């Protein structure tokens, strides 16, 4: 099979996503009062409504409607004031009523979009980028210095309920075919679910992955779901078709399932694009079918051929009156909108002088945001809540003293580095850790980055101190004191060391003077060795350069 790059030279991939998100942060189900809880004893959170018992009726969960309106506002959707629930009729034992309550042609949220910043390696998948200059706009993208921004349309976000969970016993690969019996757990039945459908605006697997990642960040910031792809609270299906470069007519699409991690989403789409290209180039035909991505075999396999469109006999749910949202309701929800990742990243760049790269990565995770912002609060005394209130125009921010401003300027960048490197590595290695409860308090974090920023310790020593704070639950200053780690920044003392080192390596000195200036690092290393790692490397650099110059 050809590589993705080869395929995309000749073919344009047209990708659309359907993303289901369970509103796991709600207390109760979509149409009844049953508790939402992942991993509870099977069939313990059920009632006549979510079991579809005869006579039971649905009552919509207002908090879920709030959540979907939040999702719509955060993704630039129009909020439809007059929308309806519909019944989607199909028979399967995981759906107790044998119809799913969902929405019809008009969903709560319509016509939204997200702008994706695609840069670095990710941008490499986009065809024809090299011929564009920064600022050039083609189709739905605009070229930037290090990549491009893609405008991705969102068709709609609608509200629906999840089905129960089935486990098939005795069949192949847990499938119903050949199973001797099947078990159903209705705890999940009736879980509020929002389905976001994108326009077919995505062109590369990287764009799809970044879209999903960005949406996940937004939903996490909105706190409407735990967005766990592993546990299935956020699930993604991809629709893919190919057309020859320059063609306008869409090809036959396949639907890809089981894209349950960012890697699967990327790799599954990549495989499917290459597979379709091979079929088409060999004169074959793509069938409209549902395919399953098998990450262990690294291929997609046919699940179901769709000869005709499914007939779900959709009709308005007569048990639920049309749902009218008032302006007041929508405005109240808008008030609840938190600062979104893009806004946050922009603020980090503006207020703390961070690079776009650092800012964008800091806002990727809740723990990085939390750690970074509590450190900032430690410096400035201003809480994120105060920042939020100021942005809403409710209260002015306290003015920072000149001294604090200087300190913020000095410490923000090393704080961001600490967060993105040491703290991220620590959390990735210990996923269950709660930073707020760890020995690494904001005060200690600032103490640590200040030691580093003031050149009291080297970055290598900082890593040691970071680990020691966690292991020994002590202040960084105390650790530095105990271990005698203070950098030697006394010029006199260092000069003596430099002289000694230069005297010991006359040949190298000769070579350096002969133009081999790369040897500077060697001399610094020798000096560091002589000071047992405590010499200030910056100072040593300067001293050596001066002496040899």
């Amino acid at each position, binding site marked *: 099979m050809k590589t993705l790059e080869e395929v995309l030279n000749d073919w344009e991939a047209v990708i659309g996503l359907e993303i289901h998100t369970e509103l796991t942060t709600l207390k109760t189900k979509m149409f009844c009062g049953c508790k939402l809880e992942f991993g509870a004893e099977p069939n313990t959170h059920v009632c*006549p409504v979510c*079991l*579809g*018992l*005869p*006579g*039971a*009726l*649905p*009552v*919509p969960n207002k908090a879920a409607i709030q959540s979907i309106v939040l999702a719509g506002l955060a993704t630039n959707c129009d909020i439809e004031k007059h929308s309806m629930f519909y*019944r989607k*009729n199909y*028979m399967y*034992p995981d759906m*107790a*009523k*044998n*119809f799913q309550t969902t929405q019809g042609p008009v969903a709560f949220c319509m016509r939204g979009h997200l702008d994706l910043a695609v840069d670095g390696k990710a941008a490499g998948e986009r065809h024809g980028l090299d011929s564009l200059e920064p600022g050039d706009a083609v189709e739905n993208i605009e070229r930037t210095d290090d990549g491009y921004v893609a405008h991705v349309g969102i068709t709609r976000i609608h509200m629906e309920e999840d089905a129960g969970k089935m486990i098939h016993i005795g069949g192949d690969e847990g499938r*119903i075919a050949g199973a001797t019996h099947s078990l*159903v757990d209705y705890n999940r039945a009736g879980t509020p679910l929002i389905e976001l459908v994108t326009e077919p605006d995505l062109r590369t697997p990287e764009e799809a992955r970044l879209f999903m990642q960005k949406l996940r960040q937004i939903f996490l910031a909105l706190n409407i779901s735990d967005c766990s792809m592993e546990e299935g609270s956020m699930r993604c299906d991809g629709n893919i078709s190919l057309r020859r470069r320059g063609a306008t007519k869409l090809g036959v699409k396949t639907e890809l399932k089981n894209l349950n991690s960012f890697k699967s989403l990327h790799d599954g789409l990549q495989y499917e694009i290459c597979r379709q290209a091979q079929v088409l180039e060999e004169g074959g035909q793509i069938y409209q079918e549902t395919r399953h991505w098998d990450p262990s075999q690294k291929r997609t396999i046919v699940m179901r051929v769709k000869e005709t*469109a499914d*007939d779900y*006999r*959709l*009709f308005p749910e*007569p*048990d*639920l*009156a049309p749902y009218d949202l008032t302006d007041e309701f929508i405005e109240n929800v808008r008030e609840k909108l938190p600062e979104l990742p893009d806004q946050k990243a922009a603020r980090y760049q503006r207020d703390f002088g961070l690079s776009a790269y650092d800012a964008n990565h800091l806002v990727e995770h809740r723990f990085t945001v939390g750690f970074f912002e509590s450190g900032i609060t430690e410096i400035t005394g201003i809480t994120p809540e105060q920042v939020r209130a100021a942005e809403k125009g409710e209260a002015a921010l306290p003015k920072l003293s000149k001294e604090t401003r200087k300190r913020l300027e000095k410490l923000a960048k090393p704080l961001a580095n600490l967060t993105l490197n040491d703290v991220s590595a620590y959390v990735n290695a210990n996923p269950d850790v709660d930073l707020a409860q760890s020995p690494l308090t904001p005060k200690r974090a600032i103490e640590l980055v200040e030691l580093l920023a003031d050149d009291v310790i080297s970055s290598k020593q900082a890593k040691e101190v970071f680990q020691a704070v966690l292991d020994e639950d002590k202040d960084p200053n105390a650790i530095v004191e105990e271990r005698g780690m203070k950098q030697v920044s006394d010029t006199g003392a260092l000069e003596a060391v430099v002289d000694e080192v230069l005297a010991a390596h006359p040949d190298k000195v000769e070579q350096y003077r002969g133009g081999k200036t790369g040897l500077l690092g060697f001399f610094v290393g020798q000096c560091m060795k002589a000071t047992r790692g405590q010499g200030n490397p910056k100072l040593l650099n300067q001293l050596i350069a001066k002496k040899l110059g």
Partner: protein
Amino acid sequence: MAAAASGAFAARSIPEIRALLTGKQVSAREIAEDAFARIDELDGSVHAFLEVTRDLGLKQADAIDAAIAAGHADELGPLAGVPIGFKDNMNLTGTHTTCASKMLENYVSPYTATCVERALAAGGIPVGKLNMDEFAFGSSTESSAFGPTKNPWDENHVPGGSSGGSAAAVIAGMATVSLGSDTGGSIRQPGSFCGAVAVKPTYGVVSRYGVVAFGSSLDQVGPFARSVEDAALTLNAICGHDARDCTSQPVTTDFTANLNEGVSGMRIGIVPQFMNAEGLSSEVKAKIEAAASKLEGLGANLVEVELPNAQAAMSAYYVLGPCEAFSNLARFDSVRYGYCAPGHKDLGGQYEESRAVGFGPEARRRIMLGSYLLSSGVYDKYYYPAQQVRTLITEDYQRAYEHCDVILAPVAPRTAFKLGEISDPTSMYLTDMFTISINIAGNGGMNVPLGLGADTHLPVGAQLIAPAFKDESMFRAAAALESVFGKAPVAPAFAPTAAAGKEA
């Protein structure tokens, strides 16, 4: 037994029972035992009951007696000590709720419907679950999987349907009042056939929670009684908003409030196209005309009103009803409860045979019809126009009520037909020709008994149709008609004296 039969409390009115109870002339236990004795004695021939709830009834009676003994007689609910029966599509914890279908023959309710819960909270003594057409599909109670109910006036005739058991139980004096449900006439038509006051309130007056759905946008629960006052008292007890049914409305009307007001100055609408309808029998027409002139005699003004689109109601109904029924009945799939055909190794086969055997012919017909009407390509041709017709009919009624306060019309084109007489589904559907447009529009309608027809000597009823959420205006006119035509009697063969004779 003789003492119990002589009491025949279930054949008395709610105020009479209340007076006896609060005057300590009789205990709730005696009332309940008497009611169960009458059911044992009389239901064999009528077959109004699918289940008799003796234990629940006696328990409730004892609780009432305990409250009276504790000196709380003045806190008794409005239905205290009143024997009440429930159509078998209403859930009551611990009872079978079969919808008269083999599909649910062994289904025991794990919860209680709001209307039942409210009737019991008001002190009603539950006497049993009442026969009906299977899943309420029918107009004669003949489609019950457990055998038809007989009309207490003449056991060769049907009681009407689908709430035939609810009408027959009250008219045989086996229950003082009962609850039924009406999707296209299923309360009013059996009320007419059996001679009971039978009320389908405006959609939303009574919660549907716990009532097995047929057509969710059409179904409404209402009472059967032998007097307008008893019907009003029962509706008072069960109406109002229910947090578990978001189509229920915050109705707090006292439906007894204007029963003695009379009809002086009231504008009674007559619909010429109903009065001149093909198929309307002369004895029914004569009774309705008599009712009109009596109301006029009592000071009401008769006005002619037009419902130009009402003739399309039947067509709209047989699109919307089956569509909703198809979807509502999809849950009966043999997997979690209900009839399950044994021996199937694959899901599809189990679904198909269980549903083929579990559902009767009319249920299968409506499921097939709904499934077809909702399918892609067909939906636009039928479902959408039917909804448009619905809007037109609703507007017709709104315009008519600019000129009148309540409409007087026939309920059924004829009196009760014989068992087995109508076998063609379309002819059966036509028995609802005067009732269906009210379900389509959503407003309230009720049957008021006018005595027996001149030709068949079977009960004839008038339909009073109120504007939406002005159900009290039809109660007002109904009380006036009752003052002329008399309260609905227990059918002669079941009148307490006759019953005592039967027993002897």
